[in-house]
């Protein structure tokens, strides 16, 4: 055995990434060979699957999209763009992870505009020290979510920040979609007399996240409802119902989203608490933390406001879709007082349903 090092360096040899035990370091974000290697090893193989034939090897700065019309049936429909930054702790939670969330979040933003989601771009802020195995899990989860949603991840960027400057990783996603011709949905369009429909149970995502928080940890069979909603939306649009507003009640929950709509449309709302479905375990977890499921985040539910005469038809269509099985008619839009959401409680009383105040913190009193 000779100890003399070989002088014949292998040209362009790069040690393979150790995806099992390796960690992100600052070189992965410096733009050099390590950055390139990360892209080629982790990102490209995963994301190329979401855009068959689209991913080219030029290392170009942008993605060239095909000519319009993008998809059959969308000719003349308006383009919709949405963007969303995803910050969640822990990165992995029952029912999903930050990767699937980043895809579903932006897909849902497009879907709530009545658009069919087509393309996503993604940017990652990675913290020095993040295990490569975790990054790869997240990236593969994103790719899987994108394939299932039939949306292509076509462009991306990565930066690495020093340890302690980010919570593992942050993901920003921007999406492009196209509406069906003639579809117009907006939070400003709710009218007195309209029906307010909800696609399923509320609070699942927010409580699933809280259940994993340090110091709060509890055991409960609660999974995030994280899901892409554009399939359900397409199904609803197919009915031809007079849909006015679609919204996914994410942060701030059902209560806050309805308040936003009431303000934007200058209307009031009257809800029936007993019609709002809450998974009993979610309800119990909220009870013991002193939180209200109506203010907890959802990632796979939508609120639909439509003409009262179309409510039944729309509700039947929602219930026929797997993501809308528990859809319910939860109330109606009133002429006023503008911006106020009121609710008949399960107990038979009447109360206001206000905006979320502050951050939902577990309380003792």
């Amino acid at each position, binding site marked *: 055995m000779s100890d003399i090092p070989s002088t014949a360096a292998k040209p362009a040899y790069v040690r393979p990434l150790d995806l099992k035990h390796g960690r992100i370091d600052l070189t992965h974000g410096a733009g050099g060979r390590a950055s390139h290697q990360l892209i080629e090893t982790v990102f490209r193989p995963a994301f190329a699957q979401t855009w068959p034939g689209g991913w080219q090897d030029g290392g170009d700065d942008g993605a060239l999209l095909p000519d319009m019309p993008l998809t059959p049936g969308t000719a003349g429909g308006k383009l919709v763009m949405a963007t969303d930054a995803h910050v969640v702790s822990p990165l992995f939670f029952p029912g999903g992870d930050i990767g699937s969330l980043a895809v579903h979040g932006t897909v849902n933003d497009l879907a709530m505009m009545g658009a069919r989601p087509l393309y996503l771009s993604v940017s990652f802020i990675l913290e020095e020290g993040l295990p490569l195995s975790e990054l790869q899990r997240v990236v593969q989860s994103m790719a899987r979510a994108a394939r299932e949603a039939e949306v292509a991840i076509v462009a991306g960027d990565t930066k690495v920040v020093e340890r302690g400057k980010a919570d593992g990783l942050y993901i920003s996603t921007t999406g492009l979609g196209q509406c069906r011709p003639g579809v117009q949905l907006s939070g400003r369009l709710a009218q007195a007399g309209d029906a307010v429909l909800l696609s399923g149970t509320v609070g699942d995502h927010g409580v699933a996240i809280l259940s994993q928080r340090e110091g709060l940890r509890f*055991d*409960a*069979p609660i999974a995030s409802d994280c899901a892409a909603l554009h399939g359900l939306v397409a199904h609803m649009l197919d009915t031809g119902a007079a849909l006015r507003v679609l919204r996914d009640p994410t942060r701030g929950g059902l209560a806050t989203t309805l308040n936003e709509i009431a303000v934007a449309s200058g209307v009031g709302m009257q809800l029936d608490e007993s019609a709002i479905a809450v998974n*009993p375990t979610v*309800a119990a*977890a909220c009870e*013991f933390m002193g939180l209200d499921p109506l203010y907890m985040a959802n990632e796979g539910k939508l609120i639909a406001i439509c003409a009262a005469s179309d409510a039944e038809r729309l509700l039947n269509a929602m219930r026929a879709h797997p993501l809308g099985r528990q859809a319910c008619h939860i109330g109606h839009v009133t002429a006023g007082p503008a911006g106020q959401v009121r609710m008949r409680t399960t107990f038979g009383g009447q109360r206001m349903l206000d905006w979320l105040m502050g951050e939902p913190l577990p309380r*003792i*009193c």
Partner: protein
Amino acid sequence: MCLALPARVIDIDATRQHGTVDMGGVRKQVSLALLDEVQLDDYVIVHVGYALTRLDQDEARQTLALFAQMAADEQPSAP
């Protein structure tokens, strides 16, 4: 004040100082240090991770029976 909920004791550790309770499917470790005696399947009232007291299930049933009695008294009398 004092958010507290009834929960069923489903496990008691060897020191009898801690246990696990179930509240409608949510399971949580709690301290049993404030209770003299507690047994599996007891209901306890939990506040900030501590069982404050045992819930007397007979009394709970009686209170509910009292409500029901009151309700019966208030039914409109049959014609």
